[in-house]
């Protein structure tokens, strides 16, 4: 719920900026949470910029710059702390995880902006755009529900939840229908069910990839030789009617980047052509870009000019892209001869993009005529929804909200287990179990009470 007053956290660095990473927190606990990792706690004084050392539970301290913006002055009108740290993705992920352990929860799509709006910080004209973003988030969710990986998650979480509802029906019937039947669940059985469910959830969490770790989008990098038409494609995608461009204040851009909604998936589209360094450095910088993409982009769209023959530059650049989840795009097909296209297809057939997606491996396109752009949009979305992206070893695809729910449920189950162990009373076990079942229901979209009643009334003959 957006009306809650949890403290939220997200990595707020724009994609592709290697030197600096920003983790942003907003909410009443922001100062407290960050202070716990500092030598000296932040005081709600007048300062705004603090140089300090951040110590995480599993790393030595490292220097950071903190920007503290108190409620009323900040973007969200809540207490905001920005942690500016070296831009290494693993380090940013570690900071994120530390902040979450200490009580922050991952921000939902557009949540900083949403809070800014709800707290009266941004003006009415922006409201429409914010609503569209939130809506896009929820549509993506619905779409994802149809995708295979999400379907598996729902089934698995649904099964765990089902077992808990079964046990809960025993416990609640034992509390509410004492006059009708003698229902008693031995603590040993309660303990086994709860521990089984907790283990299953822990396993789901450990084998899940969190969708859109950074600001909740998938990053798609347009990459390839100069003059292949990357910028034209960027403009087509970013300017398509479904595209939404969200401005995040406090971020700087060194090259072109746009947030777009393609087939219900939010992408941060990065045009590497946006950088115009001295000519002799192009290749080196492009390669660096590719390395960065290797670390954190979810999809690489490798763009070539189909009207020219494959050359060494293309070959060298492609070397760094071929091991990544990628699509190959033959641009300028309107100008290309059939034999050129055939040559490129041969070029890409050697261990090429078919690995990532056999269906959409090589796309023919013309940015000039717009031909094939729909296919590209669909292919990019499919890379994410179909699970071809950054998911090696993962069985489930979850988003930040789902992760929060699953972790919440797991913690509640651990407490429930302790209630059983200490014989604290069925009403207290039930309190924790309900917490867990409701959190899981937020993942599977099921209603707690009607399910519980169905279970009780189908199994127990209650009522005098």
């Amino acid at each position, binding site marked *: 719920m*957006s*009306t809650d007053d949890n403290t939220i956290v997200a990595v707020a660095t724009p994609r592709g900026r290697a030197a600096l990473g920003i983790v942003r927190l907003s909410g009443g606990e922001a100062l407290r949470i960050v202070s716990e990792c500092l030598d000296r706690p932040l005081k709600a004084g007048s300062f705004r910029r603090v140089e300090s050392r951040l110590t995480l539970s599993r790393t030595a301290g490292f220097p950071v710059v903190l920007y503290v913006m108190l409620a009323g002055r900040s973007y969200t009108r809540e207490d905001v702390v920005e942690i500016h740290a070296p831009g290494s993705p693993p380090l940013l992920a570690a900071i994120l995880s530390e902040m979450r352990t200490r009580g922050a929860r991952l921000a939902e799509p557009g949540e900083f902006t949403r809070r800014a709006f709800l707290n009266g910080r941004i003006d009415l004209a922006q409201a429409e755009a*914010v609503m569209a973003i939130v809506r896009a988030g929820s549509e993506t969710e619905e779409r994802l529900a149809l995708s295979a990986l999400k379907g598996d998650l729902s089934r698995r979480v649904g099964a765990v939840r089902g077992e808990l509802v079964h046990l809960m029906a025993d416990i609640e019937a034992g*509390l509410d229908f004492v006059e009708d039947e003698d229902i008693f669940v031995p603590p040993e059985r309660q303990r086994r069910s709860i521990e089984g469910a907790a283990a299953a959830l822990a396993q789901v969490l450990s084998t899940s990839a969190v969708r859109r770790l950074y600001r909740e989008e998938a990053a798609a990098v347009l990459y390839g030789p100069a003059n292949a038409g990357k910028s034209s494609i960027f403009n087509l995608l970013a300017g398509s009617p479904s595209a939404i461009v969200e401005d995040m204040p406090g971020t700087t851009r060194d090259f072109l980047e746009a947030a777009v909604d393609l087939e219900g998936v939010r992408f941060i589209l990065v045009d590497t052509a946006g950088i115009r360094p001295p000519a002799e450095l192009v290749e080196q910088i492009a390669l660096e870009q590719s390395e960065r993409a290797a670390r954190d982009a979810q999809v690489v769209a490798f763009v070539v000019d189909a009207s020219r023959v494959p050359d060494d530059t293309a070959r060298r650049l492609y070397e760094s892209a071929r091991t990544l989840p990628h699509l190959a795009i033959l641009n300028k097909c309107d100008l290309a001869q059939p034999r050129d296209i055939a040559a490129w297809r041969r070029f890409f057939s050697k261990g090429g993009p078919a690995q990532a997606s056999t269906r959409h491996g090589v796309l023919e396109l013309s940015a000039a005529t717009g031909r094939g752009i729909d296919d590209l949009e669909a292919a990019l979305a499919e890379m994410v929804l179909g699970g071809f992206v950054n998911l090696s070893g993962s069985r489930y695809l979850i988003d930040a909200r789902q992760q929060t729910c699953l972790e919440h449920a797991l913690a509640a189950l651990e407490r429930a287990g302790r209630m059983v162990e200490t014989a*604290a*009373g069925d*009403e207290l076990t039930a309190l924790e179990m309900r917490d867990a079942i409701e959190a899981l229901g937020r993942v599977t979209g099921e209603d707690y009470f009607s399910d519980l009643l169905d279970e009780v009334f189908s199994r127990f003959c*209650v009522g*005098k």
Partner: protein
Amino acid sequence: MTEQTDWDVIVVGAGHAGIEAAAAASRLGARTLVITMNIDSTARMSCNPAIGGLAKGQMVREIDALGGLMGRIADATAIQYRLLNRQKGPAVRAPRAQCDRARYTLAARSMLENLPNVALCEETVTAICARGRRVLGIQCGGTLYRAHSVVLSTGTFLRAVLHIGEEMVSGGRRGEGAASAISDSLKDLGFSLGRLKTGTPPRLDARSVDFSGLAEQSGDDEPVFFSFSSNSTTLPQASCHVAFTNDQTHSIVRDNLHRAPLFTGQIKSTGPRYCPSIETKIVRFAQKERHQLFLEPEGIDTNEVYLNGMATSLPRDVQEAMVRSVAGLESAVITRYGYAVEYDFVPPTQVSATLETKRYRGLFLAGQINGTSGYEEAAGQGLLAGINAALRAQGLECVTLGRHEAYIGVLVDDLVTKGVDEPYRMFTSRAEYRLLLRYDNADMRLMPIGKRLGLLDDASWQRFERKRREVEDIKDFLAVTLAGGTSLEKRLSRPEISIDDLAAEYPALTSWSRDARDLAANDIKYAGYVARQEASIGRMKKSEAERIPSDIDYHALRELRFEAREKLELHRPDNIAQAGRIPGVNPADISILLMHLRRRAACTARPL
């Protein structure tokens, strides 16, 4: 048409809901008219002769804490008390009592007749009158009774049909008629109506029952009363007895299913799953070898016993065979046959949390007309509707009860945000803040509210203040008294230590009343959990304060998903908290709705 004097409040129906509505309105100084089809049927117990039970007992105490009648009537006529779940945690204990059915009605009628500002009139209402979006009053034949507020608490009487086997007669209760004109009038006013079913078991002549083989269930030695003002029983106490159905009973039922209205299609509406008929139990739980039956005495000077557990609408001859197949009941004589009743209700998503209809200002619905079942559920709604009807008549703001404040709050919120698809009964598991909504603290939770509204007499308030001081003193004592370096408070928070254990060691504790002692102890036992729930209550209150204007057009909110638009339009919630509880409305929808409300507020605030 003749016109009657103007009333502040008119209450239609003098059942458990109606009398509470009248009493609350009376307390608030509203000139109130109660119209009933039969004054002798005031607060009749149509079903079992008992009050309270799990979640219901808590509600009776809540009603009492808000100045209602039910607790006092039950205590005045109780013939057996039991505190249920005595062995389990205090949050799931609840008082229950068998009452003398005839005396219950008489006591209720006497209280009703003696309420200041209240008049009674035996009439049949033929229409609800409204002009525009306001209620005008009600009409009985050629007479119009004008009122600022009207409370409809008509129970099971709307287009009611009774079923015993193939026999179908019009009536809301055995031997009484139906009120069909009100259904038509409500439809004319634009309300949609649904249909529900409920049933009762046969009653027996105790002289024909062989009690020797039946297990006796007696009451508690130390009764827990419903009313905070009660301190002794007035009637002699009686026992219940337990019997069981058997194979033969089940065969009789199975062989006669072709004559059971529930299975032949004669009854089409939904009955309660928690209170199934014996025929439903036997079909749905075919593997169960026996079902428990309770023989509950109907009163102290009658021989009738109520055969709880055998609700049925099978034909008379089948009921006889079925009853006589039970050990102990071989020669039982049935005094009244069981029957089912089907009746109209107004799906409760059409009322708001004040129980005022969304369609007409001043028109309130309470009790079974809202799709609930049970005397206590009805009474709780009657009380709230009566308060608000009076406030409305006085031009004051209506009030609601929160889910964290009372079971009555949970009840009303569930009704208005989720609607019903079977008669709604309260369970403790419906309350997410169950640890807070206890029978022992109903006075602490609600008497301050009752006092503020003007529902309490001075004696009740003084008693409350005394107890509140006692509880504070006990808590202080427990906090400052150390035993081996730890406070008694800390020791008490361990599950295995009870206040009685401490009282044995520290006799000083016994100088305070048992009620206050138990309450202090239970508060301490649950303190940690309650503190954790406070945050969630805080969030809920915040979103409850986020009101949704009643003229909002959900269909115009294109940013909302289609399903959310439909659901919101159907329920038309009063606030954001309610909207969030509507099934099918997700958190993203709520964000969008909130943003829309902010935008709208900003637009309206802008100078022209």
